[in-house]
């Protein structure tokens, strides 16, 4: 038994040092309850749908979402829009297709199988339109930042006037959660910026939470399945371990020495 304790201590140490290395230089993030945290965590459907609305109306003019397709909006464990709703959403975007029989590219309404339409043709165009800073693709953004959802949630609410002594260039803003505190994105959220169709009051905090939830889903679309399957797998393993333990005791009881 002591061996096991030692092994688990070792694991805790490794994980701990790993967290430490990731935790270098960050301000205390704002905290909120995430419904998807913990071994039984699930997404809040309404929050995902609202988050999609915030993404589309606010973020998507600069930030691409290149690994997501419109069909994903329907899949279980996501925002779970109805197929008709998702088709309407897809059709509201113009998608470049082709070449047609004449060898020309043409625009057509989006379909479920299409990827999310990109706001810019390419990275260079995105940089040119945003003062040299490339607005990062948002699909896996929460996994690409050390602080994860807490970081994104805080960043969206972290705009402040710069403290005395810090001067900011044109097009640079002060954000207390940003690495180095200087960010090229201006404050995007303000109370009542979007009008939620479910009547939720669109405060900055609410929108930040909703859009972050949506981004968590885009980064981990199978999170709910993973949690469910993990629970089953671990329960199963524990049952089998117990059975094997007693079988082992039986078998070893055949020889005289206890091992």
């Amino acid at each position, binding site marked *: 038994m002591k061996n096991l304790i030692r092994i688990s201590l070792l694991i805790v140490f490794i994980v701990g040092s790993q967290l430490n290395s990731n935790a270098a230089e960050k301000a205390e993030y704002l905290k909120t309850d995430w419904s998807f945290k913990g071994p039984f965590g699930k997404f809040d459907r309404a929050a995902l749908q609202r988050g999609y609305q915030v993404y589309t109306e606010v973020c998507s003019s600069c930030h691409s979402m290149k690994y997501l*397709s419109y*069909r994903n909006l329907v*899949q279980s464990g996501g925002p779970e829009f109805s197929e008709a709703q998702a088709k309407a959403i897809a059709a509201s975007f113009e998608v470049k297709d082709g070449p*047609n*029989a004449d060898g020309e590219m043409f625009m057509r309404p989006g379909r*479920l*199988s299409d990827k999310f339409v990109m706001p810019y043709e390419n990275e260079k165009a995105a940089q040119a339109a945003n003062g040299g800073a490339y607005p990062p693709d948002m699909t896996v953004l929460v996994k690409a930042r050390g602080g994860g959802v807490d970081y994104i949630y805080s960043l969206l609410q972290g705009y402040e006037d710069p403290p005395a002594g810090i001067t900011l260039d044109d097009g640079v803003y002060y954000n207390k959660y940003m690495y180095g505190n200087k960010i090229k994105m201006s404050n995007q959220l303000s109370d009542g910026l979007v009008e939620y169709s479910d009547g939720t009051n669109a405060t900055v905090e609410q929108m930040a939470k909703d859009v972050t939830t949506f981004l968590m889903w885009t980064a981990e679309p199978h999170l709910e399945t993973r949690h469910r399957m993990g629970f089953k797998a671990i329960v*199963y*393993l524990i*049952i*089998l371990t117990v*059975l*094997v333990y*007693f*079988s082992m005791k*039986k078998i070893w009881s055949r020889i005289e020495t206890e091992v």
Partner: protein
Amino acid sequence: MSEKKTKRRDFLFTATYAVGAVGLGATVWPMIDQMNPDASVKALASTEVDISSVNPGNTITVLWRGKPVFIRRRTLEEIAEAKSVKLENLKHPEKDEDRAKNPEWLVMLGVCTHLGCVPLDQKGDYNGWFCPCHGSHYDISGRIRKGPAPTNMEIPKYEFVDANTIKIG
């Protein structure tokens, strides 16, 4: 050792084996299922084809799900010929009416049902298609008439969106 004890031990071992086997099966399944069509492949269900430029007696070939689909605008003689064939002469009896919703247009998966080659247009003994791989002859309705292929060429799910557009899938 008493009989009762033996039984309990047997039960323990059997249970362990059984539970272990279930787990093994559950682990193997994802490794197998990953080779099935993935979500992005399944999503590419349909394709729309503009047929306004196809003249009678011509065939166009379009790609659908990675396979060729023949769209033939049949002439009146061809339609008459396709309808005149007696079912008892067919290896795989199917009426032409069941194969072409609109007799003028035959929409058919251009894949030989023998081993998957693409048959050639307007070749063979029946004025339809001929598969060069192993010599299967199809008639103008895409029905197998001679050669090793077991069934008629397959008709995919399709519909006329309007007079000039066919949606396959």
